[in-house]
Structures are given as C-alpha cells and as structure tokens.
C-alpha cells in the first residue's frame, strides 16, 4: 500500500523563512508542494520521509527567494495490483461502488467486478448480491474487502503534481471478497 519514492526537485525558500534552519524551511516547501497531492505514476504523497541530498542555494535575479536542488524520499500511497485492501463503502450508483480508505476516497468497483449475480436496487440506491436465495445488501458505511485491479492516473506527466488525478479500480468478485460481514470467521 505504501512505498518510499525517491524524488528530485528544486525547491524555493521564500524570504520570510530565511530565519529558519535550512532544512526546516525545505521541509515546509516539500509539504506545501507534495503533501496530499498526487504525482502521476508514483501515487498519493503522504509526507516527507528523509533527505538524501541537498545542494547549495542559489538566488535568481528578480526573485527574493532562494532555490535549492534536493533529493529526498517521500512516503507515498499506491496500492499494488493484486493487493487486497479493506475499505469502507461510500456510495453506490448503477455504475458500481465507490469505496474509500479514510485518507483516500477515489476507489471505484465497477458493476462488472461485483460478486455474481448482483443487482442494483434503484429505489434504495444499493447493490444486492443474490447468494443462494439470500439478498445481501452492500450498505454505505460497511467495511469491504476488495482486490486492486488497476491504478489509473489522469495525467501521465510525472512532473506535474495535482490533487485529483488517481483512481484505484477494484474488484470484489471472488471468495472472501466483498463486505467483511459476509464471511464470518
């Protein structure tokens, strides 16, 4: 689910932070640019892990801030394909299920990746798995165990950091998958 990614960047320390120790100011710059944002191809950045290298600071004409080239490691959230994760059902639509883990909510389970056979109840807006004569509802707020099928990035440009662009596609078609309450110990 989590990994350390090595990143290289040139960070700006704004003049009002010149009085801070250098790495405190650089930490602030990393958090400001990366925390809770998505780097395409890498994942959702949680926070700075450690520094690997920092070069000298440079000033550019016309800019009061100083620029430093750094190499650092970020703690990143990116589920692996095939990984099984437990999340929570956020809401359902006729297209499928929307699931979240508390800090990330762009997880989608397509209607074709549900347990067979499943039907969508338009009135209650809920998916129901018809298992051996029983109607098992997939209610909002329930814990759900799903397998990661694919991680899709909207933008393939690795140099751009954005807030919205990662979708995790999952599946609950399989033994043991689906609502945690469906499979008692």
């Amino acid at each position, binding site marked *: 689910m989590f990994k350390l990614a090595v990143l290289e960047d040139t960070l700006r320390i704004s003049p009002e932070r010149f009085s801070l120790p250098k790495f405190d100011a650089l930490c602030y710059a990393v958090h400001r640019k990366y925390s809770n944002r998505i780097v395409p191809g890498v994942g959702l950045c949680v926070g700075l892990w450690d520094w690997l290298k920092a070069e000298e600071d440079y000033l550019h004409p016309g800019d009061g801030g100083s620029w430093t080239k750094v190499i650092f490691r970020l703690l990143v959230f990116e589920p692996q394909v095939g990984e*099984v994760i437990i999340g929570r059902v956020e809401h359902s639509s006729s297209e499928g299920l929307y699931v979240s883990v508390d*800090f990330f909510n762009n997880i989608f389970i397509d209607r074709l990746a549900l347990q067979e056979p499943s039907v969508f109840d338009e009135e209650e807006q809920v998916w129901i798995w018809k298992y051996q004569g029983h109607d098992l509802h997939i209610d909002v707020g329930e814990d759900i165990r799903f397998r990661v099928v694919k991680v899709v990035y909207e933008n393939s440009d690795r140099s751009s950091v954005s807030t919205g662009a990662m979708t995790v596609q999952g599946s609950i078609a399989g033994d043991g998958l689906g609502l945690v309450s469906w*499979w008692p110990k």
Partner: protein
Amino acid sequence: MTPLTQYLQDTPAGTQCSSSLQSLFTQLEKFQLTVGELQMIANQRPNSVLQLLCILFDCERRFTEEEMAGILQIIDTTLEPSPIKGEVDMQSTPNSL
C-alpha cells in the same frame, strides 16, 4: 497525515510493534511468502483460511491445509490482537477515580 494515522490505528496494524512483526517474519520464512503477502498479513492479521486464500496468491496449490493452519497459528501467536472498533482506549481516560 491525521486521517491516515486514524485509519492505520483502526486496522490490525495499529496495535502491533516492530518486535512482534520481526518475530512474525522470522517464523514465516519457511513458507517463502512474497513481500506483498507478508505486508498484507501484517496489515490485516488474517484469522481464517478464507482470508488467507484471498491474500496468498495461488494458495491452494502452494500450501496444504496443515500448512495454512500453521500460518494462521503463527499469526495468532506472534501478533497483538486487532483493535476493536469503537472501543474506548483505557489509557487515555482521565485518572479521576
């Protein structure tokens, strides 16, 4: 970071410490599990064969029933019990009594 720590605290991973994880990994070495499988075991603390079937790739072909029971036994003895959701943390209540 706060939603993340909250999420992790509610999972079985929230009650473990590095020494129990080390013990878990050492005892599971003989089963030759992949890093991803070990990670999922540590994060979810499976307690039934069905949960192992989900987590371990090609489980039925790689392990016999006895071996799966052995894996579950090791998990149960080395890792701390999962946190129960909604349970009050006794250490954080005021010492007024």
